[in-house]
């Protein structure tokens, strides 16, 4: 075989094979990651639809007709990262400056997921409304490989009403 006739043949061949398999793994990760991201955005949209009548605001006081009987702090956080290939593309983008839409999508995805989680947690606790919602975002670092990730914390106060609960909101736009 031609590979074995060259003195460095098998070594080079082995190196090319491992390079090709790493590249294939990264591309596969990119494709799977894209599919999972789209599926996640669809599920976020569906869960927001289901929570359409659950009032959420970042106002400091509630503006509802009835008086609440109980209040509770609810928190939720999400840690998300991008795949290696996307990070590599983003680092090329960073050379030229400008928006990095990959990370924009990542943070938006984490933030919407965290907001959904506190709303769902509030609803599970028997609350009828969530006020004073705040966000905390912090970046995560992986110095050995430089993978970017983000942690988003969302917290707010869930209000529970008695038997004469508040009227549900008629219109609820999708969360930011």
């Amino acid at each position, binding site marked *: 075989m031609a590979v074995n006739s060259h003195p460095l043949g098998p070594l080079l061949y082995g190196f090319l094979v491992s390079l090709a398999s790493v590249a294939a793994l990264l591309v596969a990760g990119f494709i799977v990651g894209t599919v*999972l991201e789209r599926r996640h955005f669809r599920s976020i949209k569906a869960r927001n639809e289901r929570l359409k009548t659950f009032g959420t605001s970042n106002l400091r006081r509630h503006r509802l007709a009835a008086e609440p009987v109980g209040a509770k702090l609810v928190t939720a956080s*999400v840690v998300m*990262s991008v795949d*290696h290939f996307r990070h590599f593309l983003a680092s090329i983008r960073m050379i030229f400056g400008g928006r990095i839409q990959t990370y924009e999508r990542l943070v938006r995805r984490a933030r919407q997921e965290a907001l959904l989680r506190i709303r769902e947690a509030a609803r599970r606790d028997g609350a009828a409304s969530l006020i004073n919602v705040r966000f*905390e975002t912090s970046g995560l670092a992986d110095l050995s*490989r430089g993978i970017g990730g983000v942690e988003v914390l969302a917290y707010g106060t869930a209000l529970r009403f008695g038997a004469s609960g508040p009227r549900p909101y008629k219109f609820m736009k999708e969360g930011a």
Partner: protein
Amino acid sequence: MLMTNTEDIPGMTIMEFHGVVSGSTVRTKHIGRDIMAGLKNIVGGELKGYTELLADARQEAIDRMLEDARTRGANAVVNVRFTTSNITQGASELLAYGTAVVVKKAVD
């Protein structure tokens, strides 16, 4: 112990103020050392192990804040806020702080 991030608790009256209480944890930000995270990074997405780890650290910070409030004789903490800051390269502090108060049920 009651906690809200609003300035007052609905249905309760604030009787006494006991000052600002806080609790914090310092945690490492590195996510690469874990094998699972390394594998997950091939496809990206949520790192559930780290979400739980950071949720535990946050609960620890909240518990320390509530302990601070308890030693002052308060029974609730209002206007709770969270903030994160970089302590040193690779470590960040999660701080939970609020105002410790004594509340009792409002009588109308």
